[in-house]
């Protein structure tokens, strides 16, 4: 049996304390790094967690009166945006931006669909949406539906909208401004911001079509 001399204990004390401190600091550092890496992975997805994002089954109608479902859109990635044809600012700005992005992508720009869903079924009939979308000069799939169908898709996609009365008995609609990107299998990829730098959006779209 080994006998520990008091001198040895005294000598080992500070060394052990130093080791504990170093170990503690390294642990804190590693923990911090882990949190930073996790946060950056989370944020690269535009704030969305893969696999638990928006999306789901829907049935709507296109300007030609054809039924379009989530299954119809499968096979090609898509960028989807919710708005209404009488929107004075966010919708035309966002759709113009999406047109501009597609043009800048050249031939690659046709490798994804742009989808516009009206959250104003009371006003926007299929033909109205068709006429509105021709203003942007690029193929955009316009969709609308009954109140129940719009309620279903906006719930599935987590889209906020609210009718707000204005003077004269009319109304406007407050609605979400983000563009959602979905891959060719209908899985949510990430959010795209209509005001972010063009280069950032182009990178997102290139990543989407190559996935």
């Amino acid at each position: 049996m080994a006998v520990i001399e008091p001198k040895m204990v005294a000598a080992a004390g500070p060394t052990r304390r130093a080791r504990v401190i170093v170990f503690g600091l390294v642990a804190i550092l590693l923990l911090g790094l882990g949190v930073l890496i996790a946060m950056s992975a989370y944020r690269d997805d535009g704030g969305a967690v893969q696999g638990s994002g928006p999306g789901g089954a829907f049935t709507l109608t296109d300007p030609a009166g054809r039924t379009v479902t989530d299954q119809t859109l499968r096979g090609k990635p898509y960028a989807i945006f919710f708005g209404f044809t009488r929107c004075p600012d966010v919708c035309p700005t966002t759709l113009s931006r999406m047109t501009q992005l597609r043009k800048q992508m050249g031939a690659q720009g046709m490798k994804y669909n742009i989808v516009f869903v009206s959250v104003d079924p009371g006003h926007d009939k299929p033909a109205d949406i068709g006429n509105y979308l021709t203003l942007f000069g690029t193929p955009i799939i316009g969709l609308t539906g009954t109140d129940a169908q719009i309620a279903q898709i906006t719930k599935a996609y987590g889209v906020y909208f609210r009718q707000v009365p204005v003077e004269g008995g009319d109304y406007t609609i407050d609605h979400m401004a983000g563009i959602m990107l979905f891959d060719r299998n209908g899985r949510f990829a990430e959010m795209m911001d209509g005001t972010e730098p063009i280069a950032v959006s182009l990178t997102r779209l290139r990543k989407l079509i190559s996935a």
Partner: protein
Amino acid sequence: MLKKQAVPALLLLLASACIPNTALDRGAIRSAIEASVSVEGAPITIKRIVISGDYALGIFDQGGQQNDILLARRGRRWSMMLCATAPIRDRGELLRAGVPWFAAEMLAKQVAEPE
């Protein structure tokens, strides 16, 4: 002596990385609001900004009309989630707009308090 100072200094450095810089955030949020809604001929006046984590609520005036704007931090940028002509300042509306419970609670509380 140097060793004694190095340890707290390192701990302070690590801790400082966790403290949000609201002054920087406010500047970035202000820029994001202007980029999102200010247009030529219709300038805006930002009346108030409240922040909770990765969410911010702004109140601005444009042409005599007061609007609310909801923003979220995505990566290093703040981006507009929603621009509303009617107030979205209560917890229920914020939750419906997709703001997580805690941030919705904090934003609603801050905006209800006088500046």
